[in-house]
């Protein structure tokens, strides 16, 4: 069985992938299905869902198409989630690998810096950063990465420290390989998989953080975000709950999908190992 087939045979992986595929489709097809500015007025204000089939999920307080906003919001969430995860993994892997190889004082110094960033609650750090620098998509991504890099850093360092002691690294030294080549060819490629395994958690966390920042009004004001939608719906929560509930459900399903797919990946790679 190929790895993909084995992965999809695990129920968690299949369901998670389905949800994420839907999310990706939403994000990619948004400009096709809902061309134009999703924040323009599309109809009467506070139209309930399932009444007008050209506006299937109704409209918000200003008359904007909720379904269009949902689809365009998916783009923001996905973009932020993936970008923040990529940045965190890159920074974290770099710092962790340097620390693992350098050892001694440099290792200590880098780990104390990691400690410092890790003790500040991630959301507060992001909040402070965006407040100071100003809200835009890039700043939000940077704000999330500012605290999320510490997890990958620790994992990368632990992996490097462990792999350095393995026989095949010793074998590379015995063969006469240059230390830099050993680092790049023997250690790093084997140190990365556990670091990458963190990616699902980081993506999910990034999406939630972005939603929270947008909810507080610190997201990019020029973009539609699910957090922003939830915030907009707050004032009419009694009369038009669907305005907050629908993007909320989208968030829940997205995070669920990511976790399921991540769990499925762990399951399918664990199933392969048995007693030999």
């Amino acid at each position: 069985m190929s790895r993909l087939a084995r992965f999809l045979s695990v129920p968690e992986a299949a369901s998670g992938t389905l949800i994420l595929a839907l999310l990706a489709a939403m994000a990619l097809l948004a400009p096709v299905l809902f061309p134009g500015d999703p924040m323009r007025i599309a109809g009467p204000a506070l139209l309930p869902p399932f009444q007008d089939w050209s506006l299937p999920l109704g409209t918000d307080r200003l008359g904007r198409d909720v379904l269009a906003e949902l689809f365009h919001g998916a783009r923001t969430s996905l973009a932020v989630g993936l970008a923040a995860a990529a940045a965190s993994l890159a920074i974290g892997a770099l710092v962790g690998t340097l620390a693992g190889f350098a050892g001694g004082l440099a290792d200590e110094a880098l780990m104390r810096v990691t400690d410092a960033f890790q003790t500040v609650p991630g959301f507060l750090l992001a909040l402070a950063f965006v407040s100071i620098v100003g809200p835009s998509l890039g700043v939000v991504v940077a704000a999330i990465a500012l605290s999320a890099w510490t997890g990958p850093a620790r994992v990368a360092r632990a992996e490097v420290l462990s792999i350095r002691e393995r026989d095949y690294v010793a074998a590379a030294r015995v063969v006469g390989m240059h230390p830099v080549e050993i680092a790049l060819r023997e250690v790093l490629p084997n140190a990365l998989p556990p670091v990458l395994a963190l990616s699902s958690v980081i993506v999910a966390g990034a999406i939630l953080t972005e939603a929270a920042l947008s909810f507080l009004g610190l997201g990019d004001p020029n973009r539609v975000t699910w957090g922003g939608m939830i915030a907009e719906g707050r004032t009419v929560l009694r009369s038009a709950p669907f305005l907050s509930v629908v993007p909320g459900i989208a968030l829940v399903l997205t995070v669920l999908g990511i976790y399921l797919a991540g769990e499925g990946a762990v399951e399918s790679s664990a199933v392969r190992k048995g007693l030999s």
Partner: protein
Amino acid sequence: MHEPLLAVSGLTKTFRRGGKAVPAVEDVGFAIMPGETLALAGPSGSGKSTIARLLLRLVEPDSGNIRFEGADWLALRGGALRSRRARLQMVFQDPNAAFNPRATVARVLDDPLRIHSIAPRSERPRRIAGLLERVGLPAGLAARTVHELSGGQRQRVAIARAIATKPSLIVLDEAVSALDVSVRGQILELLLALQREERIAYLFISHDLGLVRAFAHRLILLEGGRIAEQGDARAVVDAPRSAVGRALVAAAPKLVAGQERP
């Protein structure tokens, strides 16, 4: 009288474990002649593996001298050390751990050829096929990942890697201990054939005294980091004088035909 290939004297290494000093090797000295097999045996913790790692410069001694091929081995550093490493190679105990999990056989054998400029790139595939054939493996195995192979096959690849640079000394660190007995004999035959044909000396580390007695010319028994006894391998095992020698011989499993009930 020939010059020893390897001459070790006063080798000492102490490890620091949580504040306490653990002496692993204390004042060890020995010599290996070209083409000879010297065995190192002893209980676990006696220093055998540490001596191997010190020789391979994987860890540095606290004090002592090592002369290899007439030169001061410990004085070499950096690029000079790396290039001289071609002459002193090692086969590890665990065929699972001794290879990068992602490496193919071809890459494993290409590395020493490339690093020591033994053959230009165009000629290397032919050399790799030659090495595989030398250790009794089909040339077609080159494209496979090492981990697809059986334990015995992996050890043959390890031997091929070790002889690729035409070393004069190979450290065999429990190199057959993890193999099935039915495979072990073939690997030992291969090692002996290589020794005869290429005049390679072996430092054979093993806990199996029967094996040491049959495979090695001379034997050093270690205990607590010090040399307890040394001499001709058969002579030492047949009539050990040291306490650890007698204990090892008494503990070696023997084929007995039936038990008395205690």
